[in-house]
């Protein structure tokens, strides 16, 4: 008889997701046999999403790469196994050779994003910080326009405890589909509804969340601002605004009021938004009379050329009705309010003395992370050169009067900006936590930029579309094979991630790769990298904890989190007492900061980008249920039966003679994509829908035709605007 000794371990899902689930794994005879939710976690409550339950397949997938490999020639698909020694020597020698050739590391570029939010994964940034100054893909493709909007209005991106949404009397889910993308929140929404709360879902798509709603309002894409301004006008017409709140806590009400009276009518707003005037009335009534009202603004609606402005317009009626600073109500988006409670020990390492870097425009240094944690001073007005690259020049740290940093390129216009970097040019690229070849706007433009690179390193689990451009593949561990700590951008819970199994194959964590590469760099050129070359992963996790977070979690040692996660004693209610973080200390309907960034000071109406006769249909590329960007969807357990499809509304399908299952071609000036069609009542007329993500090897490249325009906001906080992905227009023909 075989004796099985099962052991259980605690984990945190580090993906770019609201829920940041606490997971418990079961290991039998050294093999992880299953995962389940951690019932001790008050937000995720012992449940995972479908993606989370598929982790065992991710860990042991036959397609997972667990040894270092080299592709020669690049793009050929001819990969051969190499040793870590060979991989690291090749990479270190290349970095040092480029340093010799150009007198700096600016020809080395890092492109990392949100594939793993674990704090030890900031070792990638840390390792390059410790070598000197490089070229870095900065900005954020996800949420930056909405983030700036919130900062102009509120002064900081803070929000209340999402568990308290259960106390709301009205809930407005504005362009967000939590049934798919934040399923744990649906429990708290359901709780509120069972207490009699009214749920409104506003979305161009009739989503799974919309199917739950008491009221569904099908807004025209990009016209959210018009709808919100109509609501503001309706409230004003009936005198339902909270005059006390406006007088005490809001700046710019007279100006906004006069704008509403002058420029906005309910009929106009409803017409623009493509909704019945009754929809405007329902929203106004709920915000004014069914308080507290919670408004959760999604990220899709800010992926427009007027996206930031739309978010400002949506938040205005909440301020007018005083729905801020009370338990159960307020504005939800996503927030990194607790992220600075950890130390960023893995990230913050100094360059070797006298390193040569990039001089940004006067008085400004790079903010270090590009993750939107610190405002980029003067953002929105940075002098730019060719292709919008931030202007600057190469200089040595320590030169008098000179502050040097990394050379930033916009991650959302990566190919074009990298090509425009000439002095020195970019010759090496390191890609981690990132699937740029499926997720970047206009992915086909990457081809030329990648041709520039003498060496491309990809750290990943699978041969993603990005692997086509890579020379060296370094196999990464999964969360089940490493220590880590992750904080949520949504809930207040703190947990810890411990390894359950030994690394599969020869895979290593980002932190281990950083330590080993630093050792190799110093072996070849002593003093060339200040990143530590030793220390256990657990010691590195311990070093991330601060006295402040221990107090908030009411623990004395991080190891207490191995018993159960803790809820941080972070303020439950944001903006209590009407104290805002803006320059005026009030909610700023009229924002001088916005004006300084070349934007309207008031949340006025800005029309969305419009289709042209050549490309008459708007293409939306919303988030998948079974994937997070390039992650998960390609796994057989999840996407096995899924294929990339284009969803068409019935009317348009009739006009074009398209039936479900037929092959259609979507095209615009950037390229074309062939996909099977599916006729769906969930999509409004004149809109096509492809759920974005990587569907697995050989899947169509939807992003070949997506992108081109930029959002109005984003530069203030993250340094760069984001792609206006939902302002993509296409035409279609039947094959």
């Amino acid at each position, binding site marked *: 008889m075989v004796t099985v000794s099962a052991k259980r371990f605690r984990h945190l899902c580090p993906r770019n997701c609201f829920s940041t689930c606490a997971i418990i794994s079961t290991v039998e005879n050294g093999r992880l046999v299953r995962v389940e939710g951690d019932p001790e976690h008050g937000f995720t409550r012992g449940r*995972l*999403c479908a993606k989370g*339950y598929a982790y065992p397949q991710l860990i042991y997938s036959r397609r997972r790469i667990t040894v270092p490999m080299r592709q020669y020639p690049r793009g050929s698909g001819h990969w051969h196994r190499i040793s870590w020694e060979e991989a690291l020597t090749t990479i270190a020698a290349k970095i040092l050779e480029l340093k010799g050739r150009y007198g700096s590391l600016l020809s080395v570029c890092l492109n990392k994003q949100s594939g793993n939010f674990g704090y030890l994964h900031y070792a990638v940034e840390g390792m390059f910080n410790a070598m000197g100054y490089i070229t870095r893909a900065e900005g954020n493709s996800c949420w930056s326009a909405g983030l700036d909007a919130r900062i102009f209005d509120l002064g900081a991106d803070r929000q209340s405890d999402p568990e308290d949404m259960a106390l709301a009397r009205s809930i407005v889910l504005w362009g967000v589909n939590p*049934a798919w993308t934040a*399923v744990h929140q*649906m429990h708290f929404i359901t709780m509120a509804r069972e207490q009699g709360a009214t749920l409104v879902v506003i979305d161009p798509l009739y989503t799974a*969340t919309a*199917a739950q709603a*008491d009221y569904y309002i099908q807004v025209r894409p990009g016209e959210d601002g018009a709808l919100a301004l109509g609501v503001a006008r309706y409230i004003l017409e009936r005198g339902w605004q909270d005059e006390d709140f406006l007088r005490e806590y809001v700046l710019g009400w007279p100006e906004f009021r006069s704008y509403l009276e002058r420029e906005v009518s309910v009929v106009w707003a409803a017409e623009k938004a493509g*909704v019945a005037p009754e929809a405007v009335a329902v929203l106004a009534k709920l915000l004014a009379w069914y308080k507290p009202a919670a408004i959760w603004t999604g990220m899709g609606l800010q992926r427009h050329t007027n996206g930031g402005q739309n978010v400002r317009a949506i938040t205005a009626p909440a301020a007018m009705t005083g729905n801020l600073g009370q338990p159960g109500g307020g504005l939800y988006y996503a927030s990194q309010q607790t992220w600075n409670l950890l130390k960023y020990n893995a990230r913050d390492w100094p360059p070797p003395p006298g390193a040569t870097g990039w001089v940004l425009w006067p008085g400004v240094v790079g903010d270090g992370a590009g993750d939107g944690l610190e405002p980029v001073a003067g953002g929105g007005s940075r002098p730019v050169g060719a292709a919008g690259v931030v202007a600057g020049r190469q200089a040595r740290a320590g030169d008098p009067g000179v502050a040097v940093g990394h050379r930033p390129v916009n991650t959302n216009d990566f190919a074009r900006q990298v090509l425009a970097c000439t002095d020195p040019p970019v010759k090496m690229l390191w890609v981690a936590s990132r699937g740029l070849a499926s997720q970047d706007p206009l992915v086909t433009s990457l081809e030329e930029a990648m041709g520039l690179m003498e060496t491309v390193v990809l750290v990943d689990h699978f041969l993603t579309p990005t692997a086509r451009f890579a020379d060296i593949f370094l196999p990464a561990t999964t969360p089940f094979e490493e220590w880590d700590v992750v904080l949520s951008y949504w809930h207040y819970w703190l947990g810890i991630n411990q390894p359950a199994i030994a690394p599969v194959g020869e895979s290593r964590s980002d932190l281990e790769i950083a330590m080993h590469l630093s050792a190799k760099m110093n072996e070849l050129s002593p003093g060339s990298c200040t990143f530590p070359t030793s220390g256990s992963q657990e010691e590195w996790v311990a070093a991330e904890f601060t006295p402040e977070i221990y107090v908030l979690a009411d623990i004395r040692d991080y190891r207490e989190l191995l018993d159960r996660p803790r809820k941080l004693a972070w303020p439950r209610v944001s903006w209590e007492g009407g104290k805002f973080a803006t320059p005026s200390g009030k909610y700023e309907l009229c924002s001088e900061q916005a004006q300084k960034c070349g934007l309207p000071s008031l949340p006025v109406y800005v029309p969305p980008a419009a289709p042209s006769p050549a490309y008459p249909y708007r293409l939306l590329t919303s988030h998948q249920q079974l994937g997070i960007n390039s992650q998960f969807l390609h796994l057989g357990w999840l996407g096995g039966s899924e294929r990339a499809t284009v969803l068409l509304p019935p009317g348009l399908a009739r006009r074009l003679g398209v039936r479900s299952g037929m092959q259609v071609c979507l095209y615009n000036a950037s390229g074309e994509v062939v996909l099977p069609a599916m006729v769906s009542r969930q999509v409004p007329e004149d809109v096509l829908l492809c759920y974005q993500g990587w569907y697995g090897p050989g899947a169509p490249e939807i992003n070949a035709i997506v992108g081109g325009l930029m959002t109005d906001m984003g530069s203030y906080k993250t340094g760069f605007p984001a792609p206006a992905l939902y302002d993509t227009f296409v035409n279609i023909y039947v094959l």
Partner: protein
Amino acid sequence: MSSLRWAFLLDVNKCLGCRSCEVACKNYYHLGESQRYRRVATVEWGNEGRDGLFFLSLACNHCESPECFRVCPERAYRKRRDGIVIHEARLCTGCCTCVQACPYGGPQYDADAGKVGKCNLCVGLLDQGEEPVCVRACHTEALRLLDLSNPDAVAFAAWVPGFPDTRLTHPAVRFVTSCGGDWKMGDHR
């Protein structure tokens, strides 16, 4: 007093179609690549200009008159007193007669194992007083267990649109539904 008879109860008004139940089952039982003992179907409906959308999370329905049980040449199926239909993998030759006979897609063939498998209502967990894996994974408590011998069970619907005809096998599944009742839609163009 009649004895316990288990059935799944799906609240169609609450099911989000999130598919946690589906993958939680795969994760727990290490199902074959193509096997999904529980599957979530999307039902879109339209009626006189009104549209609706709901989800059906369905597994083996542990029928009163199970076709799988009737047709299996190896007698690999049995039905317990509490209604649970058990498939004995050790007796299965993978002939797939049951796969073809079941109207609900309950039994599924795994090419790697060369055998059929299906939902056994987590009988091992149930016998220890625990809930099935899919029920535990449900975020909104849309999926629950129901005792059909309870007189109150008649209050639930035995059929919803999108579900196959129940007359042949009398499936032990019930629904909470108010199909088409409770939604309103913006007048979009």
